[in-house]
C-alpha cells in the first residue's frame, strides 16, 4: 500500500479497517493513476462511507444512519456554537453602556437591567443538576441588557421621539433600520391601531431594539413607554464553528452507526433487534426537534439580527424529556453492540 499515492491512502481510510482497504489499494495500483481525480475521490469517499455501515444489500441502514447523522450533526453544531459564544465580546457595561444610554435617552436618568452574567438566562435559575434532569424553563434565552428611563415613561409624541432617536443613533455611527408601526390589530379590518414604533440599530457587533408604546398600563396622558434592548449579534466565526460542528457531529454519528451495524450484522436475531429497534425509536423522539433546530439555525442566518434564543432552545426546554429519552435509547443500541456484538468476520472463499 505504501506505493499508493497519499491522496488514495487518505481516501481509503473512508473504508472500515480490514481486508477491503488492501484489496482496493491493489486494484488502484493496477489502474496506475498517481492521484485520484475529483470524480474518483468522491466515488471512493461515498462508497467508503457506505461500506462503513456494513449490510451492503440493505437500504434501511443507510436511511437510519442518515437520520442519526442529522441528529448528531445538530448536537455537534449546538456544542461548537455554544463554545464559540464564549469568545464573543461581553455585553457592554460601564462607560460603553452609558454612551449608548446617553445617545438613546439624552439628559434622561436611565436604568439598565441585566438578568444574568451568563450567556443565557433562565428566570428559574436552576442548578446544573436540575438542568440535567429537567432542562431549562420555557423563557431560556440569550442574556441581554434592557435600557429605559428611570421614570419608565417619557413625555411627548412617540413618533417624533422615534425620528429624533433614529437621527441621534445615525450620528453616533449606528446602522438604523426603518421604524415599524406597532399596536393592536383590529380584527374587523386587519389594520394596526397605531400606538407605538419599533426599530433596530446595529453597530460593532451589537443590536439595539427600541420600542415605544402608548398602550402600556399606567401610561400618563401625553407620554409613552420606551425600552432599548441591547443584544449581541452572532459573529461569523460562531456560524463557522456551528457548521464545523454540524459536519463533525454528522460524521461521528455516521461512523458510530456503522460500528454498531457491523458489530451486530452477523449476530443472532435478538442482538440485531436490540441494536436496531431502540435506535429507530430514539429517532422518533430526537429527529423532529433536530429538524426544528436545523431550520432555526438556518433561519437565524436568513432573518439576521440578534438571536433571541439559541437554535437548540427547543431541545433544552419543551423537548428536553424527549431528547433525553432518545439518547438513552441510542445508548441501549450502543451498549448492545459493545457487549453482545463482535467485529464482522471477513468473508472466506467458497469452494464450489
Amino acid at each position, binding site marked *: 500500500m505504501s506505493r499508493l499515492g497519499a491522496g488514495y491512502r487518505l481516501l481509503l481510510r473512508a473504508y472500515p479497517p480490514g*481486508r477491503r482497504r488492501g*484489496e482496493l489499494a*491493489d*486494484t488502484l495500483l493496477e*489502474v496506475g493513476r498517481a492521484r485520484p481525480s475529483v470524480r474518483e475521490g468522491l466515488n471512493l469517499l*461515498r462508497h*467508503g462511507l457506505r*461500506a462503513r455501515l456494513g449490510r451492503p444489500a440493505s437500504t434501511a441502514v443507510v436511511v437510519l444512519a442518515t437520520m442519526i447523522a442529522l441528529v448528531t450533526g445538530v448536537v455537534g453544531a449546538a456544542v461548537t456554537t455554544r463554545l464559540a459564544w464564549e469568545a464573543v465580546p461581553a455585553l457592554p457595561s460601564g462607560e460603553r453602556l452609558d454612551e449608548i444610554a446617553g445617545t438613546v435617552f439624552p439628559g434622561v436618568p436611565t436604568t439598565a437591567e441585566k438578568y444574568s452574567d451568563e450567556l443565557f438566562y433562565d428566570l428559574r435559575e436552576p442548578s446544573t443538576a436540575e438542568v440535567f434532569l429537567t432542562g431549562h424553563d420555557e423563557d431560556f434565552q440569550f442574556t441581554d441588557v434592557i435600557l429605559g428611563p428611570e421614570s419608565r415613561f417619557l413625555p411627548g409624541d412617540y413618533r417624533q421621539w422615534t425620528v429624533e432617536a433614529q437621527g441621534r443613533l445615525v450620528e453616533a455611527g449606528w446602522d438604523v433600520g426603518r421604524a415599524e408601526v406597532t399596536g393592536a390589530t383590529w380584527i374587523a379590518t386587519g389594520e394596526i391601531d397605531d400606538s407605538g414604533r419599533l426599530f433596530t440599530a446595529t453597530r460593532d457587533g451589537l443590536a439595539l431594539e427600541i420600542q415605544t408604546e402608548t398602550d402600556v398600563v399606567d401610561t400618563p396622558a401625553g407620554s409613552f413607554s420606551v425600552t432599548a434592548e441591547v443584544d449581541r449579534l452572532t459573529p461569523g466565526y460562531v456560524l463557522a464553528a456551528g457548521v464545523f460542528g454540524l459536519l463533525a457531529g454528522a460524521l461521528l454519528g455516521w461512523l458510530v452507526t456503522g460500528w454498531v451495524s457491523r458489530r451486530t450484522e452477523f449476530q443472532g436475531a435478538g442482538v440485531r433487534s436490540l441494536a436496531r429497534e431502540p435506535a429507530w425509536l430514539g429517532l422518533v423522539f430526537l429527529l423532529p426537534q433536530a429538524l426544528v433546530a436545523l431550520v432555526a439555525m438556518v433561519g437565524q442566518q436568513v432573518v439576521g439580527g440578534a438571536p433571541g434564543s439559541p437554535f437548540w432552545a427547543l431541545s433544552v426546554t419543551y423537548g428536553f424529556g424527549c431528547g433525553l429519552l432518545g439518547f438513552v435509547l441510542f445508548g441501549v443500541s450502543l451498549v448492545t453492540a459493545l457487549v453482545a456484538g463482535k467485529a464482522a468476520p471477513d468473508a472466506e*472463499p*467458497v469452494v464450489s
Partner: protein
Amino acid sequence: MAKAMREPTFWILTALVDQARHGYGIIQQAASLSDGQVTLQAGTLYAALDRLHAEGLVAIDHDETVDGRPRRYYRLTRGGVAALQEETTRLERNASTASRQLAARRHLGEATA
C-alpha cells in the same frame, strides 16, 4: 416484473461469466466487452461486489497475495447466472419492441411521404 439491473451491476456480472476475476480484472474485462463504453470506478465496483455477494449472485473464488497486497477473485454463482440471463432477456425484449416501433415509423413515413 423484475427490477432493471443497474449498468455497473450488469457489466460486473457479464465480466465474470467466463472466469473468476479480481477487481482490476473485472474493470478491464468490462471495458473490453463494452468496447470502452464502460469504465468502472473502483469504489462503485467494490460496493456492487459487496451487494452482489450479500445477495448471493457472486461468490468469493479464491484469495492471493501479490507484492504483499491481498487480491481476491470473484465468480458468478448459479443465482448470478440466472439474474444475468433474466436481465439479458429483458433487454432483448425491450430492444426488440423498440426496433419494431422504429420499423413501423419508417413504414408510416414512406406511406405518407
